[in-house]
């Protein structure tokens, strides 16, 4: 089973990703696209397995506002690690819309981005398959102090100095 970093440890990934509505529905827990979620929300909510939603970096987290309380897993895709939109989407879900479930980074997720991702509210990281997940885990402790306000540290350093 593929592995994930979740809450600072390495665990099995119980979800599979359904890339498009046309892909067959798996028996495992599943992440569906925003499009599929929006058009089949009711049926999907009836499924026996857990269903979460994955967003692409050009999609709007505002579209999920009504479902924030019921969703337990939301994933944000990084088509390439240089696409930084996912960081803003994550903060909005956490800080503006009050999402408290699992927030997962998927796609081009690499060690050197994990620290920033975790500060923006991601708690789960699906590290790119060809990379050593144990190595990536170390990226979460790159810095011991930060200046700004963010999801994991709402008080900026100047209010803590």
């Amino acid at each position, binding site marked *: 089973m593929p592995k994930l970093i979740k809450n600072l440890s390495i665990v099995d990934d119980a979800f599979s990703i359904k890339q498009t509505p046309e892909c067959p529905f798996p028996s495992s827990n599943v992440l569906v696209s925003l499009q599929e979620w929006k058009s089949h929300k009711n049926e999907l909510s009836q499924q026996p397995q857990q269903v979460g939603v994955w967003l692409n970096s050009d999609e709007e987290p505002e579209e999920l506002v009504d479902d924030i309380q019921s969703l337990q897993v939301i994933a944000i895709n990084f088509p390439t*690690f240089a696409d930084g939109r996912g*960081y*803003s989407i994550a*903060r909005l879900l956490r800080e503006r819309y009050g999402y408290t479930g699992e927030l997962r980074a998927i796609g081009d997720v690499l060690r*050197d981005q994990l620290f920033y991702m975790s500060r923006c509210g991601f708690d789960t990281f699906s590290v790119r398959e060809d990379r050593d997940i144990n190595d990536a885990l170390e990226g979460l402790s790159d*810095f011991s*102090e930060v*200046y700004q*306000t963010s999801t994991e540290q709402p008080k*900026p350093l100047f209010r803590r100095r």
Partner: protein
Amino acid sequence: MYKYDTYDKQIVADRARQYRGQTERYIEGELSDNEFLPLRLQNGLYVQRFAPMLRIAVPYGMISSVQLRKISEISRRFDKGYAHISTRQNIQFNWPALESVPDILDALASVQMHAIQTSGNCIRSVTSDHFAGVAADELEDPRPWCEIIRQWSTLHPEFAYLPRKFKIAVNGATEDRAAVGVHDIGLTLVTNTEGDKGFRVQVGGGLGRTPIIGSVIREFLPRQHLLTYLEAILRVYNRYGRRDNKYKARIKILVKALSAETFAQKIEDEWQHVKDGQATLTHEEFERISTFFTPPEYDQNINSGVLEQQFAKHEAFAQWHQHNVTEHKIAGYSIVTVSLKATAQAPGDISAEQMDAIADLADNYSFGELRTTHLQNMVLADIRQDQLFEVWQKLNALDLASPNIGTLNDIICCPGGDFCSLANAKSIPVAEAIQRRFSDLDKLYDIGEISLNFSGCMNACGHHHVGHIGLLGVDKKGAEFYQIQLGGDASQNTALGKIIGRAFGRDDVPDVIEKLVDVYLTNRHQDERFIDTFNRIGIAPFKERAYAKAD
């Protein structure tokens, strides 16, 4: 200037350690070229024509004598014994080995310096007025605000992978020496009718391929809201800036596409959500930061009477004083610009020996501090007028007193095709040829205040769009040509130059510049500057002269 506490030190040390690891993983092949690229860029490391180029942050141009000596030491140990002052007030090394960069970062960290965000698609090192805190025309010292922005933008988790680079400048004086109109965000300190302090906010200015002057999206932002408002701008840009085409990815394109009014409304909407949040600046923090920028202990009883005699006796000193010395806000003191524009010297380059020597001058005469300027010179900001003569003699002996500040020979020039792999054409030898053409000081002074800005390619590191005369290197079928623009202005009257016509070959450039200057000299009214004459008579007479057939 600002001094790190344990928090700042920790963050910079963590970054140096992180970068060492990234370099090791790259060398071991665990990181691909593509993956290492943004990591090294966010640390100021470019891979250039002959060697990597490392850009060191000099936040808003402030550098201590101790720091400058360290730069000198690094230049001897890891480079070729010199450094370059960039047009964004930073310091560049042209020859470090990629493998030695982690050691350079450790050396920098030991003097509270770093290379964080001096490049890459992130918020770059903030720039400001190189006369901040000492300028006679200053309304408010911008440096505390620059430091507040520096800390906020350093390793910001949300804005490290923006669509494109992002530059912020702050001005607090009547004259705009920070060129805020051509930055992604330009902040001008203002006081409103109620007497409250805040910022006028301009967004979407920039040079490069699509030069645009920034639009004012807010006339008055109360100062405590600075960071939340910046956060709103950056978030909107991060989400909606174009990522499909790097030439259309700067915020200026987004502002233009939406219109400044719509963009301003979008920022206002986003801001309402974050306004008054934890990032709202506290009075205590502003006071804490401001204490680092309180004026030094100025001597109130300086006898400046000696200057007149010295001028009478030493014409060269008088010339230097007229051009390289600026009025200070405190009577009895002057601001000295250290010219890095000696003829035959690449503009902005400074040797290790010169760095050590002016670090000593700063200690002995200027409270141990210096500044770098985006015009590629350095500044000793607090010189007693009764010591100006001594300082001039010492600078002169170091070849750092060329009396040419603000003249045609004070050329802003990117490193160009001699170093930069992006450049279309060489810039340094052409700049030298122009300097030689105008080597006669009487002629140079007769021409008066003028700016000549020179970029080796359309990325515009030499800010050619905002030079009174702008030179741009272009490539035509493998040959180097130079396009000339006139009428640019980086001051508070920000204007972009207009191209006069087809480009010229390298050897023709000094002749053409001379012809353009002649048009000015013939047409000027008394005391009119080049730019004023240009604005009055228009481009046509210049064009006509530049392309006239030889008689």
